[in-house]
């Protein structure tokens, strides 16, 4: 550990973490009080929360070669389970549960749903997987949008206020920020650990050469389904946070736009390392919030589409890849 901290990557990681921990104290120095709170919760907090969901996509893509567009839906499964079971949601569909019960239930549901997605798509790869996961995601979206008994249809379920953390309300920007940051750091570290485990190595083996993995005695399907489960767990954590952040969930939270947004975040950040998820979602949150000031609000989608296209054309591995290449160029000089 201490040796790792002396490597450039280790030092950069430690510095970034320190910066993120101190962010609530730094922001008020840079901008008025109310804006500092806004940035904390709605730029950085939001970026971290959606970054978690994007990380579940990047985990599958980077280490499994599986680009899944179902991750936002899986996050939505967790969010909906919490919204359906929690006490005080409006409308109350099942209700009666505390957050301490509802949240693990939601994450478990997302994990199970992810295992199902893995099972359905286990024999497909690459572009087929992209198509099938997109179709599954849209199937779930359409179901949620039209089903009233369980999901309250188009209007969704509101008033999911979130638990109190150490006696402080979740709605407070600092609580929201620190809880999201803690969850994100734990999951991020978990991913980095997992990819060095036999499971992670085999997963990367499957990415490079599934036939070889099978010839070595591994059950490829089992590992792939398990990878989906892990990604579903991550997406579920993100989905619970996103639902609480949005004070509820509705079909729009998991629609085509939301699904593509997660892909955009991942690709902008870079499908090469989990950190790309957070970089991408931060860039996205920034653009999404300030597009009206930067550019014509009405043409926000053209802007984000062009940014996305340029990144895919110039640097298929996103901002991280771009940074690496610029770094390599500078070293050469």
């Amino acid at each position, binding site marked *: 550990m201490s040796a790792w901290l002396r490597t450039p990557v280790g030092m950069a990681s430690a510095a970034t973490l320190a910066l993120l921990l101190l962010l609530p104290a730094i922001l008020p120095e840079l901008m008025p009080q109310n804006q500092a709170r806004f940035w904390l919760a709605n730029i950085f907090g939001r970026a971290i929360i959606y970054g978690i969901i994007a990380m579940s996509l990047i985990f599958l893509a980077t280490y499994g070669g599986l*680009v899944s567009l179902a991750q936002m839906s899986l996050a939505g499964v967790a969010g909906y389970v919490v919204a359906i079971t929690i006490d005080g949601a409006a409308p109350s569909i099942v209700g009666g549960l505390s957050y301490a019960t509802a949240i693990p239930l939601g994450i478990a549901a997302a994990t199970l749903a992810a295992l199902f997605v893995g099972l*359905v*798509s286990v*024999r*497909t790869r*690459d*572009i*087929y997987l*992209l*198509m*099938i996961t*997109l*179709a*599954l995601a*849209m*199937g779930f979206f*359409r*179901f949620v*949008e*039209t*089903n*009233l008994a369980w999901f309250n249809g188009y209007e969704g379920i509101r008033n999911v206020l979130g638990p109190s953390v150490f006696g402080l309300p979740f709605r407070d920007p600092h609580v929201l920020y620190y809880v999201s940051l803690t969850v994100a750091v734990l999951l991020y570290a978990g991913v980095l650990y997992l990819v060095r485990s036999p499971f992670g190595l085999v997963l990367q083996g499957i990415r490079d050469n599934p036939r070889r993995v099978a010839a070595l005695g591994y059950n490829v399907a089992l590992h792939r389904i398990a990878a989906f489960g892990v990604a579903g767990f991550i997406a579920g954590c993100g989905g619970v946070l996103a639902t609480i952040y949005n004070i509820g969930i509705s079909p729009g939270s998991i629609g*085509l736009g939301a699904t*593509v947004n997660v*892909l955009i975040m991942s*690709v902008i950040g870079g499908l090469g390392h989990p950190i790309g998820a957070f970089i991408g979602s931060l860039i996205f949150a920034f653009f999404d919030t300030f597009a009206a000031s930067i550019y014509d609000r*009405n*043409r*926000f*989608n*053209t802007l*984000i*589409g*062009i940014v*996305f*296209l340029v990144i*895919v*054309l110039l640097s*298929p591995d996103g901002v991280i890849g771009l940074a690496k290449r610029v770094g390599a160029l500078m070293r050469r000089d």
Partner: protein
Amino acid sequence: MTSQLALTIILNGLTLAALYFIVASGFSLIFGLMRTVNMAHGSLYMVGAYVGYALWEPLYDADAWYAWYAGVAMGMAAAAIVGVAMQRVLLGWMQGQELRQALVTIGLSIIIADQILAYYGGNPRQFFAPDAIFGSSNVPGVGRYPTFRLFQIGVAVVVGIGLWLLLNRTKVGLMIRAGVDDRDMLSACGVDVPKINIIVFALGAALAGLGGVIGATAQPLAQGVDGRFLLISLVVVIVGGMGSITGTAIGAILVGLAEQIGQALFPTYSVILTFVIMVVVLALRPQGIMGRLR
């Protein structure tokens, strides 16, 4: 349910399937030869419909009998031009990088949708079919039935036969089929593969444009149809088997029937019927009903 109602619903499913087939066959054709998953296929549908409408509207106002046919031609041409431009400028040089191509087309679809909104606004619009195919006809066992919907089936059959003839009876078709099996072999034999690619992309895009005008005559054209028809194309080819025209037809019929029957029997859950079919097919035959293992 009366037998008349049942027949009507089945006929509805088939006419809807005809539209789905026209749109999805273009998607399937492009995928079959090039392995390019064109996530902007729905956008091409939309381009065809809106541009076709722009030509159709003044002609219709001027009472030109050919207004609708001109709209069809214009829609197909516009979609083909956009499709060829996509292939030449962006997709051609990254041939083989399937995922990157899919991402590029996703980016394009976002931009195209927004630009169409900017040019044409958010109002829904709808074509008026020419008199010859408007109104309703008498169908035995069903009664009066919209003529245009029957016409849709006719167009789909013509498209299906046309594609079959093209693929099985022409030199270009021979090359396309050879390319499906082995692209390297094709280029080793001295065939101009990029040119074949452009031809196929133009054809696939033109079919999306044709679907756009026909679809916008049967149902209103509005923002959001791009995502809808992309999704339908995806599901149809996943169910039917990627790259197979027969499979696309079977997939379209299954999806069209499922949609209409589901809506009639259990409206609340009808939307998932399509996806249940997809999951079942994937579980039993991951390559789709007519797809080949590779």
